[in-house]
């Protein structure tokens, strides 16, 4: 089952891999995010800052960002929240199944609702 999921992941990744990077936008540095109260921010943004940026954010020593830099060599943004090619299905699949050193995230950590919000946030700039 796990293996199948991973193959699917790669397939999906390949499918969307070709898309170009989207327009830049301001990203709050994760240090300040670490203490962000979240007021006035979209839920997906807050959940993303809470769960993802420690690995996928900007700044020193973010393994997720480093890994994607190595993988795409600039062909795609290494920062997930600058991507416009991710789909909710893909995002959920990685979060629930993990990949290489990225472990699985349980529903007690990131609930389905929070995951939906994160997916909505990360796909907000996708072209229809």
């Amino acid at each position, binding site marked *: 089952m796990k293996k199948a999921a991973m193959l699917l992941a790669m397939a999906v990744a390949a499918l969307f891999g070709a898309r170009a990077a989207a327009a830049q936008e301001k990203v709050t540095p994760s*240090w300040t995010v670490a203490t962000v109260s979240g007021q006035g921010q979209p839920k997906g943004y807050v959940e993303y800052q809470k769960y993802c940026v420690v690995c996928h954010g900007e700044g020193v020593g*973010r*393994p997720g960002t480093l890994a994607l830099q190595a993988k795409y060599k600039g062909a795609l943004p290494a920062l997930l929240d600058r991507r416009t090619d991710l789909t909710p299905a893909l995002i959920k699949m990685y979060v*629930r*199944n993990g990949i290489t050193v990225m*472990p699985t*995230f349980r*529903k007690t*950590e990131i609930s389905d609702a929070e995951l939906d919000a994160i997916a909505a946030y990360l796909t907000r700039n996708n072209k229809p």
Partner: protein
Amino acid sequence: MRLPPGVSASDFSAALTQFENAIGKEWVFTSDEDMETYRDSFSPFWHEEEDRVPSAAVAPNGVEQVQAVVRIANQYKIPLWTISTGKNLAYGGSAPALSGCVTLDLKRMNRILEVNDKNHYALVEPGVSYFDLYRYIQDNKLKVWIDPPDPGWGSPVGNSLERGGGRGVLHDHFATVCGMEIVLPNGELVRTGMGAMPGAKTWQQYRYGFGPYVDGLFSQSNFGIVTKMGVWLLPEPEAYRDGTVAVTRHDDLIPFAEALAYLYNSQIVQGTSALDSSLLNYRVSKGGGVVDLPGDISVAELERIGREQNIPYWSIELHFYGPARVVDLQWEYAKEKFSAIPGITFKEGRFYRFPLEPKEAEAVPLPQAFGIPNLQVFGLLGKAEGHMDFSPIIPLSGEAVFEALKVFGDVYHEMGIPPRNQFISLPWTFFPRAFVFLFGFPIMHDVEFNRRNREVFRRMIQVCAEHGWGEYRTHIAYMDDVASVYSYNSHALWRFHETIKDTLDPNGILSPGKQGIWPKSMRKPRA
């Protein structure tokens, strides 16, 4: 649907229904899809029968719900495997030692009950992560530091109970525990230390209470479920300084380690450091090993290369925390202490004043040494799809390091392991007064590769035991192996643990096999 061992389908579904009634339908997980998320993300058993998978997961949100779950499990004799945040990666992650256990997931219990920055402590629930606690402290502008391990997404409760280590002044995490609340296997609630007194004013300030001090029983064990824990925090220091000392000859490590022991045991040097060796790294770059492999570049040859190319043999970065003037003088004193060793060299390191500016903190290397949780360690694992840690304790002495490198080298040789097979470093000072080695065995989605590494791992346990070294902690796959080498007086301590287990948990429902402690019914005959 997978069943817990020895439980009938009808009993299990009856139990699940009761779990649902106790904690709500949405917090009882049974689908294969959900179970995937409770496996070991870094399993050494990928694609093998032995891979440990739970039958279900229950996630209570409150002490009363935990008590209810435990009572139901007792009624149906259903084994529970407790996780706090389930981030015990490299030691089993969230997976049970026994397939079919119901995972008791405490992540939802994530309340920070108190943080005091006058007496410097916190009282937290098991689901609180180091990130959570850090954010809370920042948001409330409290002048205290936590001591996160690397990585920082685990929980103070879980990591302290596993007796993990961090990087800062309070790096021995179990030693910072002050007061526990525990649900016993029979569902009864106890508070330890001063917490045993109603309305206690010093639950997080005095550890022992009155009468037998029981907290240690609940570390690396399956005697109870810790639902609250106090941890001591460090008042924010005024400053930090580090400096590196390096020696040129192999045998210099003996006086080097002696001076190190003096400085640590006098609390002049604090925090965690790793012994380093540019010459051994050089040997690795030439395809050799950190460990002493027969036929590899010899010590004499390395010393010669060191002399010619001016590469030190041994070095270590010393860490000082305290008032600015004091850390400067402590570094000066350390240099004096080491200067008795001929040819020793010193390198000035970093200096910080606290609090750091946000930008500074963003950029600071090894933030966990300054109480800032992060996940940088995962950047080190390269192409591996996970790792499991082999971590023996050895004496804090040069002689012990020499012996260990030789002994490990012989194992590599005997088993034909390529030198680079492990991510191995020289020993660390995560705990007071001893060295601990960390071997990161890589894990791949490759059955043969993993099987081979498991053999090596088990051999290493045996060989270390033959030399009087034992592991401080281990992966669920090796808990019996490690427990079995702690065998003084025909496993008297192991049997003592079992005596307590049978008394507290007659049905053996809590975390069967944890640290080699099995319920009577599942105990294997002992060699």
